[in-house]
């Protein structure tokens, strides 16, 4: 028996209607809509583009007294192992001379003279266009909405593409079990494991609890300033106003969020 075109369309229409009605009835019968089970921390510092401005001259003056308190505090808080082998060391925040931090100016001996003995505090630049994020095959590293270049260690497979991509040397690979090289452990923060890459994450765990990054807080002379670069009224934007600000390897177009005030 052949079905008539007219009947076919009728059945089709009825089926559609039935499906729609059943889904609505289901929704009504099952009652409550499930509430969202997660929410941002109420203390969370909220920003669009976090950055740090470093006053290098102020840092130089305090250097002999404080002995790089910023680095010391970060190393303790994040359980960063102190590995003697320079080729295999782990660093989140460190310091270096001008000609190493700014190699394109390194041949300029007049500038070198000007910056002699000035410690440049170096850390992940939390770039606007991070090359490490582009190359990560597992998306273990990604850019958060507030500008932090995050790492999800659970997903890192240790391929080290990001280390090759990062022009700032801000990433380190765990060649050893880092626990062997820890002297003082902070029980509030995990360690890493052999075979993953790690770096500074701008103290995301402290931002969630309403605290500013540890290095900024630790500086005894307040040479480091943390804030939202997108907010014209933020502290960081007030500090850099009218000052001479440079960024590392500007010509690469990565858009670093770590600013160096050099005047």
């Amino acid at each position, binding site marked *: 028996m052949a079905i008539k075109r007219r009947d076919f369309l009728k059945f089709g229409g009825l089926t559609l209607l039935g499906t729609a009605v059943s889904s609505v009835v289901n929704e009504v019968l099952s009652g409550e809509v499930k*509430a969202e089970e997660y929410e*941002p921390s109420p203390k969370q510092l909220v920003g669009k583009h976090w950055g740090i401005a470093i006053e290098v001259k102020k840092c130089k003056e305090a250097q002999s007294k404080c002995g790089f308190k910023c680095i010391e505090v970060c190393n303790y808080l994040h359980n960063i192992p102190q590995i003697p082998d320079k080729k295999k060391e782990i660093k989140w925040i460190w310091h270096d001379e001008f000609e190493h931090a700014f190699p394109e100016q390194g041949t300029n001996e007049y500038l070198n003279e000007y910056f002699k003995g000035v410690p440049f505090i170096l850390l992940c630049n939390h770039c606007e266009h991070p090359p490490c994020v582009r190359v990560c095959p597992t998306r273990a590293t990604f850019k958060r909405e*507030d500008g932090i270049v995050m790492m999800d260690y659970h997903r890192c497979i240790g391929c080290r593409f990001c280390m090759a991509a990062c022009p700032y040397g801000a990433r380190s690979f765990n060649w050893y079990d880092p626990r062997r090289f820890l*002297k003082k452990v902070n*029980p509030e923060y995990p360690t890493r494991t052999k075979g993953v890459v790690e770096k500074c994450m701008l103290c995301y765990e402290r931002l969630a609890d309403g605290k500013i990054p540890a290095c900024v807080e630790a500086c005894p002379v307040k040479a480091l300033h943390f804030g939202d670069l997108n907010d014209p009224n933020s502290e960081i934007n007030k500090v850099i106003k009218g000052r001479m600000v440079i960024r590392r390897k500007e010509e690469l177009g990565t858009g670093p969020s770590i600013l160096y005030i050099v005047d």
Partner: protein
Amino acid sequence: MYNAGKVIAGIIVFIVFFTTPIWLNFGKVEAIPKIPVPKKGQCVEPAAIMRAYHMKILDHWRKMAIRHNKYIYINSEGRKIRISLQKTCLKCHANKEQFCDKCHEFVVAHPDCWHCHFSKKEAQRWQ
């Protein structure tokens, strides 16, 4: 069937031999580890749910905290909990060796968690 007696006897011996572990351990369940439960009220979710799904909850916590920047978990009672294994879970379950490892060893589960996360007691060993 040729040699039926020998074949059937052989099959019976074979079955008995390979099922001896079952018969020897029949009815003995005292090997199940006794886990010391912290007496600080209810965990994140009721114990039965935690027992069955703690690994899924932890995995989801990670995704929500790291990927979506949502650090507060609202449990079925509406209680708000700061997402963190080091700061939240291990606060009550401080005795990781007794609470986590004992059971994981029993069921031969080898979670990667403890490659990076650790208990205070464990940390004393490498300091």
